[in-house]
């Protein structure tokens, strides 16, 4: 599968990443190569095989509905890019 510049731009937008326009050519080539490599998996016959969603074979790893310990308010806010007394302060988002 060939990755073109439009796909590259879309992926960058979805990941909220910026890239240098001059490296676009190289990046599309790399991505195409990655996809081609992964595409080899399609050669395996998976007819009738259930897809695996986790690496463990466990099921029903459940939690009882009990309240546990909270992260202290101050510690929680420590990683906030900016804070406003009790809140995380982020650049304005409006839909």
């Amino acid at each position: 599968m060939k990755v073109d510049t439009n796909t590259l731009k879309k992926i960058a937008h979805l990941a909220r990443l910026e890239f240098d326009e001059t490296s676009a050519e190289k990046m599309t080539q790399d991505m195409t190569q990655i996809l081609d490599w992964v595409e080899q998996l399609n050669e395996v016959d998976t007819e009738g095989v259930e897809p695996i969603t986790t690496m463990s074979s466990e099921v029903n790893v459940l939690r009882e509905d009990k309240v546990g310990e909270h992260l202290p308010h101050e510690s929680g806010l420590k990683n906030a890019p900016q804070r406003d007394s009790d809140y995380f302060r982020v650049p304005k988002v409006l839909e």
Partner: protein
Amino acid sequence: MMLSADIKNKYELVVGLEVHAQLLTKSKMYASDSTEFGNLPNTHISVLTLGHPGTLPKVNKKAVEFAVKMGLACNSEITRRNIFARKNYFYPDLPKGYQITQDKGPICVGGEVPLTLPDGTKKSVTLTRIHMEEDAGKSMHLVGEVDTLVDYNRAGVPLIEIVSEPDIRSSEEAYAFLMEIKKLVRYLDICDGNMEEGSLRCDANISVRLHGAAEYGKKVEVKNMNSFRNVARAIEHEFERQILLIEEGVEIVSETRTFDATTGTTASMRTKEDLNDYRYFPEPDLSPVVVSEEWLESVRKEMPALPRELHAKFVNEYGLPEYDAGVLTDSKEIALYFNELCEATANYKAASNWMMGPVKSYLNELTLHISDFPIQPNRLADLIGIIDDGKINFSVASQKVYPEMLKNGEKSPLEIAQELNLIQDSDEGSLRPIVESVLAENGAKVEEYRSGKKGLMGMFMGQVMKKSQGKADPKVATKILTELLEN
């Protein structure tokens, strides 16, 4: 351009609803943080809720059971092997960068919600699915501020999303559907059903087409309606807006619009073309949740009586009119109280009248809940019993005995009636002299009656009642009055 009724009638409204219900669990969907509402911002948080690296989610068992309950109540098929999915998007109210939800294989597939419309018409809305997911944090966009403030107390609170098929054809039907969902979640005790406070939220997919058209029109998704009434208003507005555009030859575009409650109109938020690509994929951090036959059975056993089951019982077993059954099953607590009342009395219609009359008006007047009602169902049944036995009449019961019972729920109504000397006199021997004296005092009226003014009977009756201090048994008094007047 005004929309004439003729043009409007050419079109059919097509609506599907997506309802998010916040589940009444104590802890969050995948973390043990409290779900309690109204606390200091960012206190019900954990490393998981904040999306710190290396943290692992774990599914809340109760949230799964609540979702199953809703599915059973809607006759959905319950998916036995459930996996979760990541819905990827960047938004500050979602610290992980993805919401853990269900994509393929929702826990409840299909189902239906039967409705009774205000005019009595019955209709059933088919459900597409009900799936489990988590809520996002709460953002505050302050006017004039350059930044947004975020509180993550709500992030991760369990939700079920109930998705209907595009079966809804009017704003009344949409309203009735939401009322029914609210009633169901409240009966099941899985969500408090309060749309104004956001524990029930609704988005509407709205399109129009010419009557008889085989294809649906392009649908518009409307968000930000924070009351049942506003959902109905938004649908009405969209119906007309879309018809006007089509009539003008403008093509409807699939887009998301936001409802403005002050103007009652909708405005474009974004078109579907630049919509997020959510890149769903199976959540690798959660093992599958398998609902075994045994587990399903234990949830089934916990299911309360559903409103439609109680409604059917009230109509079929108790012989009540549809209207009574509707009012009495509106809230679970009232319905259960009434049901208990009917186990203690066989006079079901009287029981219904007491509930819809004196009981409701007392609760409304003091804005009380039935759980605060001081009279136990068996005591109210006793009161109905002594009326049926002719010991007191209804007006004495409702005006004298009932108020005393409200003050003292322990006392039996018979005891109260005796203490207040209200027991009705059904003894002909003691009533006859009272009737005779009333007639003697009203000689002129008696003449009028005998010459044809039969309407005076009520006046004589009133006098007898007054003289007997309200205690005369009306049946016996009427009998004596008729006998003396007609001869």
